[in-house]
């Protein structure tokens, strides 16, 4: 046996000391904890104020200061290569979504749950009365409903998050079905409506009201009744559509009627504002506003859509000839280039909303200028000039100035307005009961709602559509209502969603959009020729947005919409 010379040294050094966690337990004093907020009514209010910042912006909110409208048949963006152009021409997908609010919606939703879980239950009576607490809780519920709806309208069924998630929760959240989402948001709207007031003090305009919650529910139910989500061939509820149910139109009509019949004391809570154009920059005594994205006075919208002849004017949103052609004559007949009277004076005697929405060659504008968009005209030259010969007029205030002396005016983008509710109502009631029926005694037929819209617009003939929609003709009334939405709600971020939910986008958003080439003749008259300005590409998969690819990668429960 081998002999080992053992020459071993072992040294062990173990000193155990008490090392309980408590011995290192500092806490930074500047880390404000929830209890500080709960003990201070100002901070509770501020917490809710912060969530309002998640209400999506309107106007030129897409990349390169382009408008959603510039991706549809309403407009093109003046400068090439904008996010809206990519969207409209079909260059978008899971890795580039021009209108990507996915992450921002969930961030906002998280904050509503932080409020519900950590703030709301811990505010003591001596800090804020239960009435005050419920008032803010109602607003938070409304904001949660709105942000959920923003997801639904883009993606169809989406993963509903019902708490402030924690990192050790299962974050592979699966999508809910369409009807589950609609039911969930409807419940939030109902709960919020029960807590919210019809009206706030003037200095609180912009907070969610009962009417806002009801208007959200009305639009939600209208969307859920529409062909995209309520397709007769789909007999079961799914991720991309709900279960077909013709009575969804009735629910939508009922929800819109609830807004129309909402009372503030004995008076109606809402009414159409007297002036179509001034509505957009008037806040005081404006009963048409249901909810707007509030902003301090500015001239940004004017500048970003300003004619190129004004220093700093960005051109921005250039209305298409297609939209221009859709404005009726003031008398209520359709405009027609083949009609010599119409063609001789194409921008005169039109639906008064035309000149309140669109700046055309010869129109008067700020600083007493006249728009010149004929070839070689001052507003048709420069690298930011209009590509269609039209500029945006809607939303803009002629008194705003971005050059000295600077003038700022109100621009609070309408999230919900009474005009839209009337159109929602007309559409739902017509689908449910036809143009001239009011079996549930809501107090108004579809035709009557449209008449209100056309009456305020200032049309002098065919206000009640009696000349074009025979009594009881549901199909013609549908066409008229869709036309009315296109005109009344132009540039207000409805068109791209309306064409989707009607399932008409594959036809309408699949053809080139036009501008007008205007030539000034030597005798001072003008010649007009339509001109293709941009292609529009829309394939079936685009009815719903794709989920962002990185979200698909990170969440195995998230199933991509079909076709993407």
């Amino acid at each position: 046996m081998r002999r080992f010379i053992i020459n071993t040294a072992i040294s062990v050094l173990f000193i155990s000391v008490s090392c309980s966690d408590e011995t290192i337990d500092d806490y930074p004093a500047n880390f404000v904890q929830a209890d500080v907020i709960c003990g201070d009514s100002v901070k509770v209010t501020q917490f809710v104020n912060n969530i309002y910042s998640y209400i999506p912006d309107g106007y030129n909110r897409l990349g390169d200061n382009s408008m959603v409208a510039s991706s549809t048949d309403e407009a093109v963006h003046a400068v090439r290569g904008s996010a809206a152009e990519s969207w409209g021409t079909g260059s978008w997908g899971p890795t580039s979504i021009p209108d990507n609010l996915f992450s921002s919606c969930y961030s906002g939703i998280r904050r509503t749950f932080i409020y519900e879980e950590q703030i709301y239950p811990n505010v003591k009576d001596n800090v804020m009365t239960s009435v005050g607490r419920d008032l803010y809780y109602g607003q938070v519920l409304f904001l949660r409903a709105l942000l959920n709806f923003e997801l639904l309208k883009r993606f169809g069924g989406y993963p509903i998050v019902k708490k402030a998630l924690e990192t050790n929760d299962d974050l592979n959240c699966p999508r809910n079905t369409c009807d589950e989402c609609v039911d969930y948001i409807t419940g939030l709207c109902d709960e919020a409506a029960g807590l919210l007031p019809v009206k706030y003090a003037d200095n609180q305009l912009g907070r969610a009201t009962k009417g806002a919650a009801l208007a959200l529910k009305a639009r939600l139910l209208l969307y859920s009744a529409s062909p995209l989500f309520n397709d007769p061939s789909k007999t079961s509820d799914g991720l991309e559509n709900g279960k077909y149910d013709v009575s969804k139109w009735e629910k939508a009509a009922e929800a819109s009627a609830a807004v129309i019949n909402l009372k503030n004391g004995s008076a109606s809570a809402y009414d159409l504002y007297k002036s179509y154009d001034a509505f957009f920059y008037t806040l005081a005594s404006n009963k048409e506003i249901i909810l707007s994205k509030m902003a301090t006075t500015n001239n940004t919208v004017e500048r970003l859509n300003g004619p190129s002849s004004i220093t700093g004017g960005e051109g921005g949103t250039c209305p298409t000839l297609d939209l221009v052609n859709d404005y009726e004559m003031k008398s209520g007949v359709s405009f027609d280039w083949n009609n010599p009277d119409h063609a001789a004076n194409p921008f005169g005697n039109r639906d008064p909303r035309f000149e309140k929405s669109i700046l055309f060659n010869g129109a008067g504008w700020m600083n007493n200028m006249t728009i010149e968009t004929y070839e070689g005209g001052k507003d048709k030259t420069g690298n930011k000039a209009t590509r269609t010969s039209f500029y945006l007029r809607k939303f803009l205030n002629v008194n705003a100035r971005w050059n000295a002396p600077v003038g700022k005016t109100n621009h609070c983008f309408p999230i919900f307005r009474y005009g839209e509710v009337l159109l929602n109502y007309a559409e739902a009631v017509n689908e449910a009961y036809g143009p001239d029926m009011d079996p549930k005694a809501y107090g108004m037929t579809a035709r009557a709602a449209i008449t209100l819209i056309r009456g305020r617009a200032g049309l002098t003939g065919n206000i009640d559509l009696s000349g074009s929609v025979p009594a009881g003709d549901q199909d013609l009334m549908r066409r008229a209502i869709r036309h009315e939405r296109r005109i009344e709600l132009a540039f207000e971020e409805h068109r791209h969603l309306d064409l989707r939910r009607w399932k008409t986008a594959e036809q309408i958003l699949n053809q080139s959009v036009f501008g007008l080439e205007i030539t000034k003749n030597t005798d001072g008259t003008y010649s007009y020729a339509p001109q293709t300005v941009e292609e529009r590409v829309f394939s079936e998969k685009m009815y719903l947005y794709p989920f962002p690819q990185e979200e698909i990668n990170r969440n195995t429960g998230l199933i991509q919409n079909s076709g993407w």
Partner: protein
Amino acid sequence: MADRQQLDDALSTGLALNYQGIKGSLSYRYSNSYLLDLSYSWQGSEQYPKGDRYGFFPVLSAGWIVSNEKSLNLPGFVSFLKIRASYGLTGNHDDTYFDYLESYASGTGSVFGVSPASVSGYYQNKVANPLLTWEKCSKANVGFDMDMFKNRLTASFDYFKEENKDILIQNAITSMYGATVYMPEGKFKNKGFEIQLGWNDRVSDFSYYATFNYAVAKNEIVNQNEQLRNYSWMYRTGHPLNTRFGYLFDRFYTEEDDIDALPDQSLLGSQNPGDLKYKDLNGDDVIDDNDITRIGSAKMPEINYGLSFGAGYKGFDLSVLFHGAGNSTTYNSGYTYWDFYNKTGNVMEHHLDRWTSGSGQSAKYPRLTLSNTNNYVTSSFWVQKNSFLRLKYIELGYTLPATVSKRIGMTKARIFVNGSNLYCRTKPDHKDPELQDDGLAYPIPRVFSAGLNLHF
């Protein structure tokens, strides 16, 4: 032994970072041939949530002194040979500050009122993150040490492999979570080897030595939860840390080009003959972010080597040190390289080789312009190899014989001259290779000194 540490960051207003833990070690020797060492630390930091504050970090190393094994009959010239290996786990402390706690702060507000007025907001600015814990680094090492020819030749070799994991990276989870969160999911690798050779000898009065070392280290980002990219060449993951990304230089535009017919580079500015044309990697006829890829090798040198030698003869002594580096690139830019930089810079000698009409592709520099966004976007054109060999230090001395120094009342007297940074062979010739990209900052100075060392 127990250990408590408080690191105070003098620059910040934050609380000091507190650590505590215990350490221990265990050594085992057997027969003078086998060595085994185990040390560990049980380290705690209050920056991590309770329950995850402590990390256990052991290091195990083993050695075998082969030359002590009489039975192995190593060749006679080998006087010492030791083979060793180690494996250890260490913990890095991420740059977190009480991130396991939630907190609230004032933030974005809103606007309300018929006369719209801004109001303040308050929000949860930090979400409690219970997943925080020590970033772990495993290090494995094998190598040997060897003395030969009566210790005149020494050699050692090491191969190492390191892997850092649980590095905190942002947003590794779905945005349905609704807030920014860091997850311990990042991963980073580093591996390489190191050789060291030394020789020293004496021939009667003449002694001399030389040592040479050579080290190669390559690192790679394994996972950093990179955003989704459209093309494989755009990914940063899989490359060394801080690798540069930019457009690939294709050629100069020339007068013969119909620029409008070439891939559209207008996103980068306007193009004229003499400007840089970049490669259209995805072939979509547009030069944009999709054509950005890795340019140049690593920023930090992957190869480092050094040579030192010296000699002594009857009171004279000489020592010399060279240092070199390779496999790295620099990015020529700014005042030291670009023309009319920022409209206040100079033109320099290398601008004589600029593109001019007729110079085609033979130019070394684009046409000169006062401002030109196209040429100065980050591109491979400005990347240059950055290898260098520097004579870092040389010293010659003479020590008076002891008998002489004693006579003048000193125990030792030495006179010397030395110089540092005397010579540098390098690729970029307009700036010091060890400086930042734009060459601004003082270069390493060349220093000469002469002196006397007197000991009384």
